[in-house]
């Protein structure tokens, strides 16, 4: 047994590992702000948004099936940003609302770099998004905007609504947040397959929450407004979406 033999016991890092290193390095901020990493397991046929993520895929899916999204974000906006500021940061000029009539008000915002990955961990697409958090007491609503186009194949099969000629889609599911070292049980895998649950790693404990989302597109920008919890009902969340559409 030689040192060379010992080295060969490990061989080369897999592609997925190298991709992770590159993504981590690409997302380092000069300000050295704390960066957060979120990983999500997607349920079959459904792409959903989580706290820091807008994640929908189109053409890149031809190369493989979207299996997970990794998102790295850093706090970028401690005060309410202008559309021009967001345009400078990620190249889209979205419609924005600072305060909603139902009491939700802007608290903090972040920019995320998202990567859609196939089942082998290969990056199929990379894109940026902006997430603005709104709070009302302990409740939180998250609005995510991106220039990435949604994927029809994986479109959310939710309730459709039309407002000012814009089609909005409402959907809901249960999201389980689990620690990074959580190992999925066979039942968990079945629940993901059936669409009963989605899983997010990065939590401190195992928690389950209802997640409901309204998604729409306008002027080549994808919007999603999401609540993790049940402070709002379907119409309450839709009303917030309408307010964004009405804003200039």
């Amino acid at each position: 047994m030689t040192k060379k033999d010992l080295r060969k016991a490990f061989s080369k890092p897999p592609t997925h590992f190298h991709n992770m290193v590159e993504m981590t390095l690409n997302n380092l901020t000069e300000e050295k702000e704390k960066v957060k990493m979120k990983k999500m397991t997607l349920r079959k046929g459904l792409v959903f948004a989580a706290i820091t993520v807008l994640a929908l895929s189109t053409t890149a899916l031809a190369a493989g099936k979207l299996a997970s999204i990794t998102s790295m974000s850093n706090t970028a906006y401690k005060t309410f940003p202008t559309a021009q500021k967001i345009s400078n940061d990620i190249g889209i000029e979205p419609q924005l609302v600072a305060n909603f009539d139902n009491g939700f008000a802007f608290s903090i915002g972040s920019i995320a770099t998202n990567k859609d990955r196939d089942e082998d961990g290969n990056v199929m697409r990379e894109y940026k998004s902006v997430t603005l958090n709104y709070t009302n007491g302990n409740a939180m609503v998250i609005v995510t905007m991106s220039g990435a186009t949604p994927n029809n194949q994986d479109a959310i099969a939710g309730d459709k609504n039309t407002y000012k000629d814009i089609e909005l889609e409402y959907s809901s599911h249960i999201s389980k947040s689990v620690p990074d070292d959580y190992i999925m049980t066979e039942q968990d895998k079945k629940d993901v397959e059936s669409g009963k649950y989605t899983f997010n790693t990065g939590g401190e404990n195992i928690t389950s929450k209802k997640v409901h989302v309204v998604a729409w597109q306008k002027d080549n920008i994808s919007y999603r407004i999401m609540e993790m919890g049940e402070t709002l009902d379907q119409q309450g969340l839709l009303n917030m979406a309408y307010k964004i559409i009405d804003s200039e």
Partner: protein
Amino acid sequence: MDKETFTKKVLESEMTLYRIAKSMTLNEKDCEDVVQNAILKSFQKLDTLKQEQFFKTWLVRILINECYSFKRKSVPTIGYEDYLETEDVKDDFMVTDSLEQMEKKDDYQALYGAIARLKPRVRMAVILYYIEEYSVEEVKDILKIPTGTVKSRLSKGRKELKAFLEKQE
């Protein structure tokens, strides 16, 4: 050190980061997580690096702390034998065609298994000295343990590897 140099140096150390993290976590996902944490922490603490020429050793030390932190937090939910059955070990070895190469692959698999069976602290000393080719003095500095302890861990590791591999033959 600027971001560009940091990125270049991390990429140069990628193999070392992978081998150390994989040897301690024993699976790809956890390996990625500890390496990612180590990269982020090292970038945040970059101001504490006094001499650039010791960057790799400094980074390795941060990674090892992450590995130990991971070991402390993780609850063993899957045994090593189970791990070998469930983990796709094919990716860890070069694709081979000939019978000789296939036998060689089995040897490396047995060797990997033997390394994985060592106690974590012994395993870390073995990895740093035999695989990453640090000197005993460097291993002493990285692990912050006396020279005698490094030597005894290496001796123990050698004996256990030898015994295990002989049993396999």
